[in-house]
């Protein structure tokens, strides 16, 4: 093993290829076609226009950067929707402690087993930032915010409907047993 550890790949070879590929994806055209969907998605999840515009741009710049992946997609809208969703989640993580974050507001819904259906979901993405792992957050957002069935969510994420259902169930159980502050406040209203 010691020998293996001392062996090295020439740095120039191990680092990224300097070769650049010609841009085959017309990002501007895609923006003109799908930008409204991405912008709307970002507004829904982020809750304000400034952040939504910023993340919308970021989504298309990612598309430019990762265009090899994009070329394998049959539906550009699906691909962009997924990128927009995950990018928004990242954004929410980065701003979660800011005082202007609307998450601090209590939500006026009864704390019941069907809470998530009632929340339906203004600010859901922001409210669950610290409460679930990435995969579960995606399941919750696609299901509760977008109204996708478990099967549709599973198809989008490449997992089974049962796995989606399980993730949501586990999350609901967890917040029932250890309710976040905003749920407790809501319950007291």
């Amino acid at each position: 093993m010691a020998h293996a550890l001392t062996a090295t790949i020439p740095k120039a070879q191990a680092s990224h290829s300097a070769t650049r590929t010609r841009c085959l994806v017309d990002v501007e055209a895609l923006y003109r076609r799908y930008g409204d969907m991405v912008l709307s998605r970002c507004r829904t999840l982020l809750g304000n226009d400034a952040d939504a515009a910023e993340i919308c741009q970021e989504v298309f710049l990612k598309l430019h950067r990762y265009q090899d992946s994009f070329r394998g997609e049959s539906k550009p809208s699906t691909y962009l929707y997924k990128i927009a969703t995950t990018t928004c989640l990242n954004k929410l993580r980065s701003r979660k402690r800011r005082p202007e974050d609307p998450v601090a507001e209590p939500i006026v819904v009864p704390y019941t087993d069907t809470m998530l259906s009632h929340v339906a979901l203004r600010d859901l993405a922001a409210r669950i930032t610290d409460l679930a792992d990435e995969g579960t957050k995606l399941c919750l957002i696609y299901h509760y915010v977008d109204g996708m069935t478990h099967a549709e969510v599973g198809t989008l994420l490449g997992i089974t409907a049962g796995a989606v259902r399980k993730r949501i169930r586990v999350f609901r159980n967890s917040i029932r047993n250890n309710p976040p502050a905003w749920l407790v406040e809501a319950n007291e209203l």
Partner: protein
Amino acid sequence: MSAHLNTLTLHQLRYGELDDAEEVAARAHLATCELCSERLGAQQSERAAFEALPVPEAIRNASAAPAPANNNRNWIVAVALIAVAAAVVLVAFTQPWQSAPVGTVIGDPIARGIDGIRPKGHEDTIVVQAFKDTASGPVAIESGGQVRVGDRIQLKVRRPPAPWVTIAGVDGSGEAAVYGSWQPDADDWQPAPFGLTMDDTPGKESIYAIFTETEPNRAALRATLLDDHRSGEAADNTSWQVIILDKVQ
């Protein structure tokens, strides 16, 4: 939730991306559902407003520029997750690497439904590369590249936002395994202190390099993988990057 059309379906209806059967079903639903018709109308209004906006300069510039090196697409970040399959056997290499042509590597975060990228400030950083041992030396493996039973894979990592690196994976049968953790002692590329030999489980091999602030709990990592190898329990300040290989007999 299935009583109405989901938001993405409404978008795709507008874009003409539904197949015939889907479109027929969607339009039949819209004919009888006031709520969904209103949602579609709202999308169309947003569309009209959007068309009045200028295209951001950054996007115009991107369209005019060549794509970045496509290796940048290969990373993700998130939390504590994973590693190469039970289909992969951990081995210690006894032979030093030989110099050989090496390309570049890695995984496809977006294809996994998570475009990556957790730790802020490191979004464009490739932190793990894979190489297959060959008679002429190690050769880089592209994401989606083929490996065969018995192939030996070496990894190199560049210490990213966290000091601990764990190699783990999920094989084509859904089995997960955590192969080992260590602390790279420098920020430059370094070989993993072990390699992997492909076993005979066919299918996709997802090899993860997981980066954590502290030494991770291997059992917890594996349990997460077994539950759903697409994502995992995340701990703050943890990130990972994945390389997906196609294993054939």
